């Protein structure tokens, strides 16, 4: 079984969000970069578990990004990927990124393409569905469980108001979220081993972006909290009812 895991680089969850260049660029000064949590904890770790159960499985990682994404992809290799491909392009258009991933996926004839549920910076939740469409494959979104037996997969996924169990034949595209696996910490052996694993940078295929970021904006600051004394909680209820009209 050949698995392709899509890895994106995102600011750490505690990073300060600010913009430069007339609010057109994310301010990267002092920002720590991490593997997008959904890609790491859920997609990648589940792929590693599948490989642990089936020694013939191979895990390739793909990222669309500049050379500054290399440390991130090395970390993913340290966790357990076998080989990595970085498509040397910097874009925030989902269709552009998905087209790059689809080109790699087609070339490699993977049995399964795994993505995270969404990137925590651009929050598109879009790449997986686009890759599936470009490859004409089924797309199982927001999966919480994945088991594979032979060429069949059994998947639990979140639907509006509940969960659904699906069976689908390989190949397919799946987006992963909580439930799939637990976070792992790379060990020394993994980190050392990752140094010699292949990380290949390739040039992107020519694709027009369909969208562009014009500007970013920070939300207006909150007016500040109105504190009610602890010995008068009834006043809070009155404020919520009469002033905030919350209920």
């Amino acid at each position: 079984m050949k698995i392709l895991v899509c890895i994106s680089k995102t600011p750490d969850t505690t990073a300060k969000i600010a913009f430069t260049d007339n609010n057109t660029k994310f301010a990267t000064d002092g920002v720590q970069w991490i593997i997008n949590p959904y890609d790491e904890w859920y997609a990648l770790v589940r792929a590693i578990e599948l490989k642990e159960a089936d020694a013939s499985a191979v895990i390739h990682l793909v990222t669309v990004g500049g050379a500054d994404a290399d440390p991130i992809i090395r970390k993913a290799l340290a966790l357990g990927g076998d080989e990595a491909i970085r498509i040397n392009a910097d874009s925030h258009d989902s269709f552009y990124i998905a087209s790059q991933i689809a080109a790699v996926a087609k070339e490699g004839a993977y049995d399964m393409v795994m993505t995270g549920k969404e990137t925590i910076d651009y929050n598109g939740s879009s790449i997986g569905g686009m890759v599936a469409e470009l490859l004409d494959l089924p797309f199982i979104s927001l999966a919480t469980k994945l088991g594979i037996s032979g060429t069949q997969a059994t998947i639990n996924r979140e639907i509006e108001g509940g969960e659904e169990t699906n069976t689908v034949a390989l190949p397919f595209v799946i987006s992963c979220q909580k439930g799939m696996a637990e976070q792992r910490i790379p060990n020394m052996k993994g980190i050392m081993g990752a140094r010699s694993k292949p990380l290949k940078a390739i040039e992107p295929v020519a694709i027009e972006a369909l969208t562009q970021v014009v500007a970013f904006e920070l939300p207006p600051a909150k007016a500040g909290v109105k504190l009610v004394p602890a010995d008068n909680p009834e006043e809070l209820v009155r404020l919520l009812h009469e002033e905030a009209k919350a209920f």
Partner: protein
Amino acid sequence: MSVLVFLDQADGQIKKASLEAACYGAKVAAQMGTAAEAIVLGAVTSNLAALGNYGISKVHTVSNTQLNHLDAQVFTQVIAEAAATSNASVVVFSNNLTGKAIAARLSARLKAGLVSGAIALPDTSNGFVVKKSVFSGKATASISVSTAIKIIALSPNAFSITTTEATAVVAELAVTIPASRVTVTGVSKVEGEVPLTEAELVISGGRGLKGPENWGLVTDLAKLIGASTACSRAVADAHWRPHHEHVGQTGLAIAPNLYFAIGISGAIQHLAGVNRSKVIVVINKDPEAPFFKAADYGIVGDAFEVMPKIIDAVRKLKSNA
């Protein structure tokens, strides 16, 4: 030219998030000087002509029961045909779980630029620019879409429903429905609860509540005001509450009118899922809890002393109403 709105249904009823999308689509259509049409897949029991009240002039149905289950690939093909039939230049989805599964596929199929998680009407004064929420609600981005067809997936609870009296034309659309390559072998729905993403009022508890046995402080208040319940990741990880209640960076992102947080510290990853809520109330015994910085109202106090009094006061208020 038209605006086509995909309306998601559950158990035969159009979902609230989709009604928001309908109203949004109607406004977009008005901006463009055209009409809003809708597409409904699967067998529905709702009175579809009444969608006129939400600004929809025509409803295309494909009432084959195969479409009662979401298969992103099948739905995308059917919606693409509907978009061609109605000559749509804008297709609107709710960015709920269903919309997330389909909108992106349709975007790739039609080579139509997608804005997912839109929170405002497009600005058409100079091109076509839509605001969306980014960095987990910590910022917004204005996205310009340059393609002939545009797709917008609207954040739930970001656009209010307004109605006027009108009747929509309902017509069955003749399409070929491709065979599904995904088999649904089981469905489990959380019975009788409003899905968190659709809830207008949410009461949420954190580790400050000490254990699942104390959750009455959350659920009693929720029942009284008809709210849904949520929790922090720490609580879901400890199995005090089911995972589907977990909100935040790695859980659900919600934007209710009221988010009432009890014994939650307000870690940045928690805020990422709730910071778009309209009114945030925090009950925490630690005056330094970071949540107070994001709150509109708060009490610095012990939840075990404060909450019973709040519940009593709400009960009184409700019985006088």
